[in-house]
């Protein structure tokens, strides 16, 4: 688990109950995670019957938290105190690695 950065963030255009006074630009955070060989074997076996591949779900969850964390660190470095309109984008890099990108608009709220 990452040390948490204490910035409020939403994926709607505003922070409810607050006013946005200044935009600090787009902040991004991304991470590429490869599959673990041992988890890969388990997932390969689970692949025979189909259904959820729990090992990959966990992998995805970890990389999602990592990407969010990097985005928030970026926002903090710019002096923002909130991030609005957060979006995720995923893509798969060759070799079974998964890339996860989180991006949003860093803002200063009152």
């Amino acid at each position: 688990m990452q040390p948490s950065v204490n910035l409020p963030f939403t994926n709607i255009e505003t922070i409810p109950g607050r006013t946005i006074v200044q935009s600090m630009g787009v902040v991004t955070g991304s991470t590429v995670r490869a599959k673990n060989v041992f988890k890969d074997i388990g997932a390969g076996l689970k692949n025979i019957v189909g259904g959820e591949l729990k090992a990959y779900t966990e992998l995805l969850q970890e990389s999602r938290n990592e990407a969010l964390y990097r985005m928030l660190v970026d926002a903090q470095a710019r002096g923002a105190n909130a991030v609005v309109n957060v979006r995720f984008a995923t893509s798969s890099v060759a070799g079974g690695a998964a890339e996860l990108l989180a991006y949003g608009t860093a803002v200063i709220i009152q």
Partner: protein
Amino acid sequence: MSDTIFLIYLAFSLSPWIVSLIGTFLYQNAKKDTLLQREKAHSILNGDNLSTLSKPLLGKEVKEFRMVMASVVMSPSWIQITIGRIIAIFGGHINVFTKIIDWARREAKQRLRDDISEAGFDEVINLRLETATITRARGGKDKTSGIEIIAYGTAIKY
């Protein structure tokens, strides 16, 4: 003697396919049934509390918010991949894959519902669904493949 060896060889080489056949029809259906039960248990009480709108529908004031995320990776079974490939020769609607993707999306959305009701939130607004596929590694030798679904939104409390 050679017959028994042949039979043992046959059993071992066919066993993943037999497991796949059983898994496709029994395991997957059982999982889908439990998912349906979870969905029903939720919707009877509150109606659906996920929406893609960026504001709560009735203009209620938001007291508390948090961004919530849920993800799931689903894979078709060997049998389903084979059926899909055969249908793909002729083209058209590949029902086996549609079912898997639909199942994965439902599962991801249900996880969001479970999450927010546990944390005491009322509704999720601005729901987004993101999809990606896990590629076949190492030149197609690895059969592992799957669909990743990420569902995310803002949970709010009135």
